[in-house]
C-alpha cells in the first residue's frame, strides 16, 4: 500500500472539494467539534504526541513550535499558513489546496485555537489565482459553520507578488506587513516576535492538512503509517524522467527507489531508462547518485547519510542523457534571479556562481566555487542564500557525476 491517501482525499471521495458534504465525508466537522471541546494545552499535547514535523522543509516538530507560541508573552497572536509554494519542482500544496482546501483551513483553525489567535493569514503564491478562489470559497463554507469570522477566527488571504523569497517565513511576514519581502534576522523567531512583533505561528499548507486529518482521527491512527521517528505521510512532487510524473502521497520510511519505480507511483524511468541522479528537495536540494537512491528510505535520518533532505518533497529524476552541469546552470540562474539582494554572500555570490558555471568553472575553478559556496552556506542571512549552493556542493562532492 504505497500510495496512502490521507492528506489527499481518497479516489472514491464523492463530495465536491468545497462543500459541506466534504467536511462530513473527510471527518473535518468531527475534527472541529472535537478540537473545540479541548483546552489549548490538550490540543498541543495531541499534536506533540502525533510526532508531526513541519512539511515546509525544515521538519521542525510541530507540537514544540505550537507550545512555543502558546507560551510566548503578549495578548495578540497570529497564525499564518504559508502557501507561497515556489520551490522548483514543487507543486504539492497546489494539488492539496485544489483537491481538499477545507483540510488545510481546518488545520489553520485548530492552530488558531491552540495558540489563542483570533486572526490568521493564508499567504498564497500570486500565480495560484484559481487556487486562491477555491480557498476563498472554502472560507465561506467555514464561515457558514460559524468557525470563521469576526466572532471566531478571522482568516484573511494575502497574495504574493511573484518573489520566491517571500516564501521564506520571515520575508513572508514582512510582506504581509506591507514591507519589502526581505528576511529578518533570527533570533528572535516568529514564535516570539512575528507579525507586527506579536507571537506568530507559521506553518506550511501540508503541515496544516496533517493537523486536520489528525483531529479527524486520533494519534494512534495517525502513527499507523510512517516511521516511529517520522509518523505520517509526505506529499512528493515527482517530475523529470519518470513514466508517471505527479504528486503522490507516500508514507515516511518508504524506499526512495520504489517511489520512482512502483507502478502506482512513478511507474519507472523514462527516457534512456538509466538513472544518472535525482535532485531531492528542489533547487535548494541535493543531487543523489543511483546507488545512494537505492540505499535510502524516505526519512530524514536515512537521507542525511548522504547529506540529503526531503525539503519540500520535490523529487526530480534525471536519466543519463542529462548533463548535470546544465541543470546546475539552470538552478544558478534561478537563484541569481530570486535572491532578494539583502546580504553580500547571496546577492553577489549567486551571480558569480552563475558566471563561473557559464565559463565551465566546475572543472577549472572547482576550489574557488567550493569556497564561495561554503561562504554562502555559512554566512547568508536566510535559508535561500544558505541553501542556494547546496546542489552545487553536492556535485562538487561527487566529481564523477558531472559528465554528460
Amino acid at each position, binding site marked *: 500500500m504505497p500510495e496512502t491517501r490521507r492528506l489527499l482525499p481518497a479516489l472514491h471521495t464523492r463530495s465536491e472539494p468545497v462543500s459541506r458534504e466534504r467536511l462530513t465525508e473527510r471527518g473535518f466537522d468531527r475534527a472541529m467539534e472535537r478540537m473545540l471541546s479541548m483546552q489549548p494545552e490538550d490540543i498541543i499535547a495531541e499534536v506533540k504526541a502525533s510526532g508531526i514535523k513541519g512539511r515546509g522543509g525544515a521538519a521542525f516538530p510541530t507540537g514544540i513550535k505550537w507550545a512555543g507560541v502558546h507560551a510566548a508573552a503578549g495578548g495578540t497572536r497570529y497564525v499564518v499558513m504559508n502557501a507561497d509554494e515556489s520551490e522548483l519542482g514543487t507543486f504539492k500544496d497546489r494539488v492539496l489546496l485544489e483537491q481538499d482546501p477545507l483540510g488545510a483551513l481546518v488545520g489553520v483553525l485548530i492552530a488558531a485555537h491552540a495558540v489563542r489567535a483570533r486572526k490568521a493569514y493564508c499567504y498564497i503564491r500570486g500565480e495560484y489565482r484559481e487556487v486562491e478562489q477555491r480557498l476563498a470559497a472554502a472560507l465561506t463554507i467555514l464561515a457558514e459553520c460559524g468557525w470563521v469570522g469576526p466572532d471566531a477566527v478571522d482568516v484573511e488571504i494575502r497574495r504574493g507578488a511573484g518573489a520566491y523569497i517571500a516564501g521564506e517565513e520571515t520575508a513572508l511576514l514582512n510582506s504581509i506587513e506591507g514591507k519589502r519581502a526581505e528576511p529578518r534576522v533570527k533570533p528572535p523567531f516568529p514564535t516570539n516576535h512575528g507579525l507586527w512583533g506579536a507571537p506568530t505561528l507559521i506553518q506550511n499548507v501540508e503541515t496544516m492538512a496533517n493537523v486536520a486529518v489528525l483531529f479527524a482521527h486520533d494519534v494512534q491512527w495517525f502513527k499507523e503509517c510512517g516511521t516511529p521517528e517520522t509518523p505520517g505521510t509526505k506529499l512528493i512532487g515527482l517530475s523529470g524522467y519518470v513514466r508517471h510524473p505527479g504528486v503522490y502521497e507516500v508514507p515516511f520510511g518508504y524506499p526512495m527507489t520504489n517511489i520512482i519505480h512502483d507502478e502506482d507511483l512513478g511507474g519507472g524511468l523514462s527516457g534512456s531508462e538509466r538513472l544518472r541522479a535525482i535532485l531531492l528537495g528542489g533547487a535548494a536540494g541535493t543531487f543523489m547518485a543511483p546507488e545512494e537512491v537505492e540505499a535510502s528510505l524516505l526519512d530524514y535520518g536515512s537521507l542525511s547519510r548522504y547529506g540529503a533532505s526531503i525539503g519540500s518533497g520535490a523529487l526530480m529524476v534525471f536519466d543519463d542523457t542529462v548533463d548535470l552541469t546544465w541543470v546546475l546552470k539552470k538552478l544558478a540562474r534561478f537563484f541569481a534571479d*530570486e535572491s532578494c*539582494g*539583502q546580504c*553580500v554572500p547571496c546577492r553577489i555570490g549567486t*551571480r558569480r556562481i552563475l558566471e563561473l558555471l557559464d565559463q565551465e568553472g566546475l572543472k577549472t575553478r572547482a576550489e574557488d566555487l567550493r*569556497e564561495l559556496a561554503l*561562504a554562502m552556506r555559512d554566512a547568508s542571512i536566510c535559508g535561500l542564500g544558505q541553501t542556494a549552493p547546496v546542489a552545487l556542493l553536492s556535485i562538487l562532492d561527487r566529481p564523477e557525476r558531472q559528465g554528460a
Partner: protein
Amino acid sequence: MADEVTLTIDGMSVAVPRGSTVRAACEAALVSIPTLCWHSNLEPANACRACVVEVKGSRALVASCSRVAEEGMDVQTASDRVRNSRKVVAELLLSTSDADLAPDLLHLAEISGADKNRFAGGATWQQPVKDDNSLYIRDLSKCILCYRCVEACGEDAQNTFAISVAGRGFNAHIDAGFGRELPESDCVFCGNCVAVCPTGALIGKTEWTLRQNGQWDEDRISQTETICSYCGVGCELNLHVLENRIVKVNSPMDHPVTHGMLCVKGRYGYEFAQAGE
C-alpha cells in the same frame, strides 16, 4: 550578577551587560571584529556579513553585530568557516565595487587575505556618477548596499524615508522612488546619508569636486569645532577647512545633541561664512 551574562569568546570568558551584542562582547574581550554595515548610531542591518562568528550549536554563522549575547554562549571569531566567509565577502565586494574611499572594506580585505581578482571579471556595479543636485554626489559604483543611508534617512535618524532598496538580487540598489532624481524625490538634503556612508558612494559635492581636481589633501585640512548658528538646538559642527575655506561639515557621532546627524542648513549652509561681501 543578574544584569550580566557571561560567555566565552575564543576560549576567554567575558561578562557583559545583559542585552549586549556578541560584537560588543568581543570588543569587551579585546577581540577585533571587522564590520562594514554596522554603525554605532544605527540599527544593525545584518547585510554585509563581515562580522560573522561561529556560535556553538548554531548551524549557520551568526552576525555578531545584531545577535544578543546569551549566558554560556561559546563564540569562535577566527574558525576556518569564519575566515573563509570574511575573505569571500571581501572578495565579492571588491569584485563589484570601487573601494578607493572605503577604508573599512580595504581593512577587511587586508586582514582576511582577500584576493581582489579572484571573483573579478564578471558583472560589476560600474555606473555613471549621479550629479543631480548642488549638495552631494551619488557615485554608486562605490556602493556596497550596506543599508546605512536607508536607515539614516528612515527610522534611525531623519524619518524622511526618501530612499530605499529597490530591485532584487544583483540588481538591488538604493533608489529615491520610481528611479527619480533626488531633487524630484522626498529628499530634504540633510546629508545624514552622506555622513554614514562607509565607501564614498555618497559624498559632498565640494569634496568630490576637489578630489576630481586632485586638490583634496587630508594633511592640509584643519578641523574647527563650533556650534551651528542657525537655530537654538545647539548642534556641534566640525568645520573642515582647506586653504581658509570650509569644504565639509559634519558633527561628532558621539555628540549628545546630534549623534552625528544634522539638517541641511547645518551641513551645507556654510557659504555665507565665506561670501565675499
